[in-house]
């Protein structure tokens, strides 16, 4: 279950981790473990990255101003909870459009040569 990546090239996935995390935060805020579970669920279990690698990505997104974080006490434990910012919501929209265009283009080229 916890191999590096199931069915998807890990380098390819790492390059998109920032985008996937923003998408995972779109519906509601969450701490690191919740986000890792959400990513796995949203992909039907197909996408699993080494879970520690989401933390550098979360730091990067916070630096960019796309998310913010605060400490919260959940189930008696102190957790860092992440939330999508307005800038992050805009960025996610822009990344979505870019991805739709790009994936359509790759589909066309790959389909044509298949």
């Amino acid at each position, binding site marked *: *279950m*916890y191999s590096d990546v199931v069915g998807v090239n890990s380098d390819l996935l790492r390059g998109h981790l920032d985008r996937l995390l923003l998408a995972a935060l779109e519906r509601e805020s969450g*701490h*690191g*473990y919740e986000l*890792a579970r959400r990513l796995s669920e949203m992909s039907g279990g197909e996408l*699993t*990255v*080494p*879970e*520690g*690698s989401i*933390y*550098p990505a979360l*730091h*990067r997104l*916070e*630096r*960019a*101003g796309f998310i913010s974080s605060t400490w919260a006490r959940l189930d008696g*434990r*102190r*957790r*860092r909870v992440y939330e999508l910012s307005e800038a992050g919501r805009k960025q996610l929209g822009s990344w979505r459009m870019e991805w739709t265009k790009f994936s359509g283009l790759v589909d066309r080229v790959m389909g044509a040569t298949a």
Partner: protein
Amino acid sequence: MIEDFLREFESELKVRGRARRRVVSECRAHLEDLVADHGPEAAVGAFGDPRPLARMLDVEIAASRAIRATWMTAAAVATTAVSTLALIHSADSGASAPPVWAVAFFAAAQVAATVTAIALLHAARIRRSPASAADTALLARRNRYALIAAGFTMFCAGGALTGNASAAILLAGPALWLAAMLAVTRSSILSSRLTTRGVKADRSPYSDLGELLHIQVPTIGPLALALLAAVGAMVRDSGEAGETLSKVLVVGAIEAGLVLAAYLAMRRPLGLRQLRGSNIAGA
């Protein structure tokens, strides 16, 4: 098993202070949840290798610190400029600075403003892109040069002119300067711990500006830049009463010479060897 993992993770982690406590606390909580759901062995396997994780976190935190230090540097340079202007305006009437102090003052002021602008472009660019250790070390170095030049500018004005001014205004610059220098030193220490010896980054401010504005920015070479600066200095001085043509030409020549000398002296430490395009060494 988790304790072994965290021990290795912490021994690899270079960052100190609050940021370190935060990442260790987050990783511990995440691992505890994984253990509760899947058992210790699967938890450690799912979390990944502690060494690259520690390295990635160090690099991201170093970048965030370097960017924060850049905002502080810009504020400190601006406040130092205000303090320096207050110092000049408070000078005794009729006081004039010796030529060497005056040239040093103008050179340092221009270096401070230019390097601060380069550092601001650099910080704005890497704020929303993945960082490398060499790149953040370069940003810390640019900040340090900007602060040293700003401090030297005020020192030149203070050394050359005597007078009285509000202590609050005069001290605001140095106080903020000191705070910014501490932040820059902190970010520099972390970046240097992460950078492989001998690996240096180059970064073109033209490329940073182009990427920020999403346009192609033409590159101005050092000779053209020196010429532009000379023309600017001549235009500025020709507007002043009593300036002769020969004096204006000398000012232009000094300005061009200073710009070229500053470029040649600082292009290596400031990562400006390759003005055309970004050539960032990762480390």
